[in-house]
């Protein structure tokens, strides 16, 4: 083997937006801590805050995100222009048009979408998506992650469905690469991953047309993708209001619980705990079960299991 490479792989620079985000996150961290510690969790939280603060810069860079409501009218409604968007659906799916891709977020799903320049990354926290990606010959592949499974694609139509730790991928057109741990498999049109698993629900999702959306869908959810949310601030406000204004506290917890990360987990559990204290057992049970699905390694897993046992 040669001493050093003659033509090493090119170094792909970060996009301007990524650099801005790093700079903003760094400055936020320096502002918030006189002697900052290199602790990954706090840094990542800072980075998210930085990303939200830079939402307007993404507008200048040409990023866009459009949410369509096919049952309301045929026009696509622009709801957000930012680098990172969180989407939560309840009883109805939501259709989204991105640059070079279209996406249907299934009902009862939590999905994060990050679009920075040509890079498009989708993370499924819960539920599923059906996605069509135009061929991306000269752009970075689209990546979809669901738990510890990662799907990369340069042009195809496929579905991903996540239920707790299980992830299913169904490919309708083209081909995708699925990575799980250190294993990687190509999944082609008509195939599904994992191949030996019955994926009735995922297959049905892949073959079904876009579902109609309930016109009475919750207004807050309609606006959610465009709203930067500081989950920690919401959580702290909610905690302060638990005794004096429990209804308001529940609303705040509910908003915070829609986010990913540790404060989203804390808020979801707190929301369930508060509902239980108000004897709203069924709703609390639903949320506790949801907590266990979304955050199987969360800090309140044992508490949630214990409360569920008490309820049952």
């Amino acid at each position: 083997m040669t001493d050093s490479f003659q033509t090493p792989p090119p170094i792909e620079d970060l996009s301007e937006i990524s650099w801005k985000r790093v700079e903003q996150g760094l400055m936020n961290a320096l502002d918030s801590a006189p002697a900052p510690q290199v602790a990954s969790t706090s840094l990542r939280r800072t980075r998210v805050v930085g990303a939200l603060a830079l939402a307007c810069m993404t507008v200048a860079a040409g990023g866009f995100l459009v949410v369509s409501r096919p049952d309301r009218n045929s026009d696509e409604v622009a709801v957000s222009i930012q680098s990172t968007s969180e989407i939560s659906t309840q009883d109805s799916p939501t259709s989204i048009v991105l640059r070079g891709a279209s996406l249907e977020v299934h009902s009862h799903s939590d999905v994060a979408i990050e679009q920075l320049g040509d890079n498009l990354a989708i993370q499924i926290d819960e539920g599923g998506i059906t996605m069509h990606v135009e061929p991306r010959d000269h752009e970075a592949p689209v990546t979809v992650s669901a738990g510890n499974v990662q799907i990369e694609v340069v042009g195809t139509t496929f579905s991903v469905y996540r239920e707790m730790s299980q992830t299913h991928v169904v490919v309708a057109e083209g081909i995708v690469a699925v990575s799980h741990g250190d294993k990687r498999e190509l999944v082609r049109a008509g195939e599904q991953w994992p191949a030996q698993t019955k994926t009735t629900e995922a297959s049905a999702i892949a073959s079904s047309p876009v579902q109609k959306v309930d016109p009475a869908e919750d207004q807050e959810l309609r606006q959610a993708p465009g709203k930067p949310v500081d989950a920690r601030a919401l959580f702290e406000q909610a905690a302060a209001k638990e005794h004096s204004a429990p209804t308001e506290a529940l609303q705040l917890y509910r908003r915070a619980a829609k986010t990913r990360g540790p404060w989203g987990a804390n808020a979801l559990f707190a929301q369930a705990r508060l509902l239980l204290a108000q004897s709203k057992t069924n709703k609390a049970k639903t949320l506790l079960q949801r907590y266990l699905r979304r955050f199987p390694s969360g800090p309140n897993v044992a508490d949630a299991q214990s409360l569920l046992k008490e309820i049952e």
Partner: protein
Amino acid sequence: MSPQPNAIAVQHDDVELATRCASGDRSAQLQLFHDHKSRVHAILYRILGSNREIEDLVQDTFLEVFRSIESFRGQARLGTWVSTICSRVAFAHLSRKRPAVIDVETVPEMVTDAPESDAIAFSREAARRLYAVLAKLDPKYRIAFALHVIDGRKMQDVAALMETTLVATKSRVWRARKEVSKHARRDPFLASYLASQEPS
């Protein structure tokens, strides 16, 4: 031999900038960040093989730089000192137990027939396979290999960045080479890529 006047002036500038950063001067911190961000990114990219996770690590590096900046006395160039911290951050990151991730991905069947497209696909796939092998190595071997063999840095420079001896660095590179070669014997694609890197 005494240092050249220009070198002394630059080093003085480094110390002055570091002193301002240590006092919490935000404009100085921004200047240091902008002066050295490309250097930090290049080192991290070479070690990791992609931009995934790199934003956090760039941020980690500069936070560590600012946390330690009081200890900078101009004993080396500021860029070298920042690079050393960057290497340390990369090592700490790789040493943390984490699930393996395939970093660079292509699906060759979907790429167009244009010759440049083939070259890009070949290069990406080769890089993916190479870094998949490196991901299985001890972080010390991986970093030494990435900086010397892939990036072409001199062995003594790599030793300085990794804060170790030249002998230890040579040993790390040798062990990494051995592992990469072992995998290449079972992977003709990787073997072909490594062969293409030989001097013509």
